[in-house]
């Protein structure tokens, strides 16, 4: 099953290559995170998908799109810094958006009322958008993007500008929406991607340097890592651990000794043996799975 195919997508701004030969296939009902450092070309890719920017070369093709249909009606888009008509009320703006998407006035009003409720700002539906908070605007932005039930929802940094509460609200809204549509969102915060995405696209300097399903990538970049905490004398234990054959690297990070190993199972045994033999005052012993951040750093720095 394919929703959308991106082939050889490239964008040049005057002489700078912003996006270089990107290929990807989106499948329905998946949540895909587009990750990369600032300036990697995330926004440029998303804007090309939504039709706001024309690619220098390459093709974006919706599967099963009737030839004469406007691709924009399949997509809902929330820009990184959504700007609204501040003189409108939230309800008016949603109704207006719905009508522009081709709904009748009545359908639009009905759908807008429903969405205002769903995103939790129904009590302010007749207030001017100018008086909305950042989180409310962000949720209104998502509501206008899904008013026509698009197949693909494109969100540009949907949670980066929000406080923890707003962030939580938007993430759980996305969690719910991904049952109904494909979500493609960009972020530079790895935790957000970790939390809700099924697939990952890692972008660096306009190129996809790694992509795939989350659990596959996790295995691929699994780094064996152990961290232990002791009451005292960390340097002494560090030196002892570094002599073990299964250990690759040891260093101290504040009150913790971080250990990476060639073979995680052997390393665990060896460390626990020596620790119990010499009766180290251990307070904590942890085996880590690879965090997204490790993976990110590894790939980006390669």
């Amino acid at each position, binding site marked *: 099953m394919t929703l959308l195919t991106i082939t050889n997508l490239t964008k040049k701004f005057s002489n700078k290559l912003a996006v270089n030969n990107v290929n990807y296939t989106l499948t329905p009902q998946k949540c895909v995170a587009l990750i990369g450092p600032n300036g990697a070309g995330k926004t440029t890719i998303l804007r090309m998908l939504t039709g*706001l920017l*024309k690619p220098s070369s390459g093709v974006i093709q919706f599967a099963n799109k009737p030839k004469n249909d406007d691709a*924009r009606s399949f997509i809902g888009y929330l820009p990184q*810094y959504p700007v609204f008509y501040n003189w409108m009320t939230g309800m008016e703006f949603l109704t*207006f958006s719905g009508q*522009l998407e081709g709904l009748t006035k009545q359908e639009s009003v009905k759908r807008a009322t429903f969405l205002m409720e769903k995103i939790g700002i129904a009590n302010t539906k007749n207030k001017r958008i100018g008086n909305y908070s950042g989180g409310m605007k962000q949720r209104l932005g998502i509501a*206008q993007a899904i008013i026509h039930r698009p197949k693909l929802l494109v969100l540009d940094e949907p949670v980066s500008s929000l406080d923890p509460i707003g962030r939580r609200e938007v993430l759980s809204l996305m969690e719910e929406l991904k049952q109904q549509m494909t979500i493609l969102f960009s972020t530079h915060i790895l935790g957000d991607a970790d939390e809700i995405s099924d697939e990952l696209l890692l972008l660096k300097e306009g190129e996809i340097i790694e992509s795939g399903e989350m659990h596959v990538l996790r295995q691929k970049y699994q780094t064996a890592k152990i961290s232990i905490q002791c009451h005292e004398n960390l340097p002494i234990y560090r030196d002892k651990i570094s002599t073990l054959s299964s250990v690759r690297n040891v260093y101290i990070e504040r009150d913790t000794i971080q250990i990476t190993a060639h073979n995680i199972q052997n390393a665990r045994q060896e460390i626990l043996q020596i620790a119990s033999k010499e009766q180290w005052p251990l307070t904590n012993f942890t085996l880590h799975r690879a965090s997204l951040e490790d993976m990110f750093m590894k790939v980006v720095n390669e």
Partner: protein
Amino acid sequence: MHTKVLLQKEMLENWRNKKWIWVPLVFLLLAIMDPISNYYLPQILESIGGLPDGTVLELPEYAPQDILLMSLGQFSSLGVLLIVLISMGTIAGEQKNGVMDLLLIKPISYRSIILAKWFSLLLLVWTSLFLGITASWYYTNSLYGEIEFLSMLLVTFYYGLWLTLVVTISIFYNAIIQTPGLVAFLTILTTIILSIVTNVFGTHIKWSPVNLSTYIHEMLVLGSVTSQLIATAFTTIVLIIIILSVAIYCFKKKQH
């Protein structure tokens, strides 16, 4: 369909920001300033005093047509300036602050966006013009002498074409530039260049839109619509259609 929705939005916006109140009022003010001040000029000069006794004030006797034309003169300078200022950000501003993005991702045509903006401005301008000329006509009739109602309607129609051209030029610059101040500057510059060119090559371009005022004057004096006026009106309409089409084309191009 979409144009209608967009137009409704424009109308609501211009109602909420009170343009529908103050723009017609300013046009009314511009229209009745001259009829009133000229009527009271002798008294005003007398009350200021300072003139030696026995001075005979020789003030020009105005024909009713002159008075109506004075109102048009106000529209041509301050009225045009006002139109340029209220229209300078209508698209440019929305592109600059990013709100246009939320329109452009909807499956609507670029033409709808331009046409809705253009038409909403025209409704405002034509309403204001009609009110202003009606007021000027009313004052002229009660203070100076009669002008036929039909003449007044014709003046409104032909002069409205000139203002429509100004609106269209502003929309054109709006479509291609994102800085409202620059849009205003270029719109005014274009009308100035248009009148300079018309004056320099006057004999060759008799049907320049700039000459609308001259032929409207002629019409009022002669009491009939001349073929020159009709030809000029026609040129103006053609020019408006061309500029508007180019504006839509450029707006479409520019988005990519």
